[in-house]
């Protein structure tokens, strides 16, 4: 490939990826009448009315808070529960084939479509009065994320040489203190990558949140955005604004953890 061709391909791809989002931003700043008149490349005669409507009558504030609460609580609990289990699978000689059975079932969970789980979830949450409730969502996401954390952290922890830990064990440390003092700091990048994937998957989930929630009291960002698409009419202005606002947490998050991104996306595929 010539240098020129490479450069051209780069520019075209970057434009393909970013231009739609720029347009989204432009639309979010336009008046209702202007939007129906036709597209613009630049926000002429900008307005904040879409954002005002979004946070006023369309409850974007509660969608954001719901998403942040549900995502952070479920991911943190999953890391706290899943990492020790991953450690046990990576380090201990478990009786029988328990170790590989555990791993395979953690992988299988990734294959299970959410649609398969939502009917029982719906019935069970209804029984406990947790439908349209953030706690209900947190419980579901914690379960799904935990199996994911086990799967990813197991392969990260297995990569850490056992000798490092054994030195500590010989020196009289207990397993617990070896795990906390020695393994956890080394597993830092792995934890980060796992957290990234879990956060993005949970924040982006649509089907589960759609079926388990029904009012802004507990609807998450994706569900909230979908409510702006009515049967007959779509509120394009507020919806574009919602797209921009809904993207902000992920962009901030992705910028902070950018170093671990590629690792997180491709974990398990490449050594």
């Amino acid at each position, binding site marked *: 490939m010539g240098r020129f061709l490479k450069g051209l391909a780069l520019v075209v791809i970057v434009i393909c990826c970013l231009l739609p989002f720029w347009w989204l931003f432009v639309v979010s700043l336009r008046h209702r009448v202007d939007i129906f008149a036709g597209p613009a490349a630049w926000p002429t005669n900008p307005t904040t009315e879409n954002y005002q409507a979004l946070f006023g009558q369309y409850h974007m504030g509660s969608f954001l808070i719901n998403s942040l609460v549900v995502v952070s609580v479920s991911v943190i609990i999953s890391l706290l529960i899943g990492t020790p289990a991953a450690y046990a699978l990576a380090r201990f000689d478990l009786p029988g084939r328990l170790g590989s059975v555990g*791993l395979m079932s953690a992988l299988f969970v990734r294959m299970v479509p959410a649609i398969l789980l939502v009917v029982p979830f719906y019935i069970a949450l209804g029984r406990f009065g947790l439908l349209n409730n953030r706690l209900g969502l947190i*419980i579901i996401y914690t379960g799904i994320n935990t199996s994911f954390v086990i799967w990813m952290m197991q392969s990260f922890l297995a990569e850490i040489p056992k000798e490092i830990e054994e030195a500590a064990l010989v020196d009289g440390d207990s397993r617990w203190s070896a795990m906390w003092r020695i393994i956890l700091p080394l597993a830092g990048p792995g934890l980060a990558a796992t957290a990234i994937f879990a956060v993005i998957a949970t924040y982006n989930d*649509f089907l589960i949140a759609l079926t388990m929630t029904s009012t802004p009291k507990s609807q998450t960002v994706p569900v909230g955005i979908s409510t702006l698409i009515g049967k007959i009419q779509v509120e394009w202005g507020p919806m574009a604004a919602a797209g921009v606002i809904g993207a902000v947490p992920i962009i901030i998050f992705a910028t902070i953890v950018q170093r671990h991104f590629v690792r997180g996306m491709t974990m398990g595929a490449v050594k």
Partner: protein
Amino acid sequence: MTEATVEVATKPRRARREGRTAFFLLVPAVVVVLGVVGWPLVTTVLNSFRRVESALPKAPKPFVGLHNYAYILSDSDFWNAVRNTLYFTFFNTGLELILGVGLGVLMFQPMRGRWLLRVAVILPWALPTVVNAAMWRYYMNADYGPLNAFLVQTGLRQDYYSFLGSGTSAMNSVILVDVWKNTSLVAFFVLAGLQVIPKELYESAEIDGAGALRRFWSITLPLLRPVLAVVLVLRTIEAFKVFDVIYVMTRGGPASSTTSLALYAYKTAFSDQLFGIGSAISLVIVLFCLSLSLFYIRALGGSMGPEQS
């Protein structure tokens, strides 16, 4: 596991303590995963053999044997959804794989602005599908969509086109939007795979006079095979479960022409309140996914687990 662990654990007291520790480490995770995923899975299997027409806990759930499965197999909507899902999965995964390999190779090239490329490519993948889909639904609008304006102004089309207005066109549009979003994932897998191919291979091939294309066919592709196998399985499973992008862009229309199996299961369970039949459909999706993955793993010889190292 390895000899080293066994050595440390030779003393029986230590071994007993290790067993207890492992138990305490595993129990919370096992309880959570079994409770939140295992139990609903079993319930869905059971429900698929029952008539469940209410979500109320006290509602009767008579056992109906294979009736739900017989019902969906004789339902033309089911076969329509199967056709749509297979079409979506095939073209979606195929396009993503071809474009993803190209993009991954490009991201691997040393050049100015590479960081910008890597950052830009992450965005469509990282943002919620709902945001992407809603955005493209607007761009593809037949009356005032920017995509139409763009095509007309650049002379690529004479008039505005209703992308989501007819069956085939709507399906292809949905596929393209999903390709736009998920090609990044394939590209990043390819990038990660390229990073572990030894550079010496390329150097000696170059000395032997192999051209760029030849090097790609004889070195890059064969060595990427395990990575491609994994990403193919991942993407096929995801594509087969497609729901969000279709729900937001077309709601399965026009006239069920974009209804996927997941959407069909969702509508059956939640719009028609036929939870038993909905459960049967979602189990069909799992069976499809499982057999497709097994087929790929056999055919391509990739392994999915950390055990491969």
